């Protein structure tokens, strides 16, 4: 098979790339003042692959890195104020996942431990067209074998989210690969901002946790009785009184599993309570869930560790903009 490609880079007027957990989109605007895109050049067309390779100037000169891949799903001609542009709208891996619908019913671990959560995840992702690669993984995702049924007609994103809710692990997608990450508070930063790499704009927000107590209910099949385990975030309870939720999962069969699940939920609540954003000159190597270090004396931050939970690449040649907004979460 011969790969056919066309380089659109010289005609890109603006571009917006958004990568969040569960969502990745691309909007690119191409100049069309002279009607050069009145008919789309081959192979540009609906369903084609769009590769975005952001570049930057380093001590080595002009460099670029291979970036995300998208699928073109719409284009639009826009004329205003004497100018004419072609907008390309494309989606990434998460959209592929959410558009996938299970065409068959699958049941795992009905009689014995056949596949752990990671293996089920791998199974589902492979059906959608992704390979799973491990950056890091928890012992829960490899050691938990739930009785798990995927019904016909259910969406891929719902299945993936359900599987990931059983473990502290997360995934991010690049191209046709889904990367599994177990975010830990002890993760070391991969990059620093605020000193050599300047922070042009920032905001850091701390909120109380949406959840500070969770009651997890499982079922011990041997003893044939319910398991109930509470997990608490006491400091948050002292500050905000209890904000409780209840989770029932019959696949949880031990007190330890119930406690682990509860702690995972509390950890997510903690992470969501710390959000923020920094704008920086583009760093092509920055990936979702990377841990970074920020020094921002205006906000009293010295080598503060944060986790990246969203990346926006924004380019607009009319405004002279070329920046990255990094959405932050707690470790």
């Amino acid at each position, binding site marked *: 098979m011969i790969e056919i490609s066309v380089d659109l880079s010289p005609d890109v007027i603006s571009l917006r790339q958004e990568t969040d957990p569960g969502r990745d989109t691309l909007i690119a605007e191409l100049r069309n003042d002279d009607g050069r895109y009145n008919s789309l050049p081959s192979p540009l067309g609906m369903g084609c692959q769009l590769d975005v390779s952001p570049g930057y100037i380093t001590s080595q000169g002009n460099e670029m890195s291979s970036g995300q891949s998208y699928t073109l799903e719409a284009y639009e001609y826009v004329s205003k104020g004497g100018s004419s542009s072609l907008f390309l709208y494309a989606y990434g891996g998460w959209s592929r996942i959410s558009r996938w619908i299970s065409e*068959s*019913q699958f049941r795992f671990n*009905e009689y014995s431990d056949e596949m752990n959560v990671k293996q089920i995840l791998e199974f589902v992702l492979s059906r959608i067209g992704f390979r799973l690669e491990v950056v890091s993984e928890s012992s829960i995702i490899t050691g938990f074998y739930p*009785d*798990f*049924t995927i*019904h016909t007609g*259910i969406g891929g994103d719902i299945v993936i989210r359900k599987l990931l809710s059983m473990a502290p692990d997360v995934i991010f997608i690049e191209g046709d690969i889904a990367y599994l990450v177990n975010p830990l508070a002890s993760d070391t930063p991969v990059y620093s901002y605020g000193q050599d790499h300047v922070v042009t704009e920032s905001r850091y927000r701390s909120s109380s946790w949406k959840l500070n107590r969770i009651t997890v209910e499982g079922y011990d099949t041997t003893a044939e009785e319910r398991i109930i385990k509470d997990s608490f975030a006491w400091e948050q309870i002292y500050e905000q009184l209890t904000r409780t939720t209840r989770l029932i999962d*019959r696949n949880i069969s031990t007190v330890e599993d119930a406690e682990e699940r509860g702690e995972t939920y509390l950890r997510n609540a903690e992470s969501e309570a710390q959000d923020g954003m920094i704008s920086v000159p583009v760093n092509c190597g920055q990936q979702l869930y990377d841990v970074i270090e920020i020094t921002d004396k205006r906000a009293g931050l010295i080598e503060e560790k944060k986790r990246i939970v969203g990346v926006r690449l924004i380019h607009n040649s009319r405004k002279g903009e070329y920046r990255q907004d990094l959405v932050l979460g707690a470790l």
Partner: protein
Amino acid sequence: MDIVKGILNSFNTGNYTATVQISGSDKVYLNGVAVSRNIPAEEMIPGRSLVIIFFDEFNSKEAVITGIYTQ
């Protein structure tokens, strides 16, 4: 909680569970689905339609057949 339609494939009077075909699935069955004890065993005739409640749609052990009917 989800309520789905199904078709009865077989019924185990011993442990009051059934093998069912969920509406929309083709040639695939779910085994060991609990049947509500208020349904008389003689009504559990293969081929009849079922009302199935899933307390957890991903866990068939959290499902119970609450009704059986003909159309």
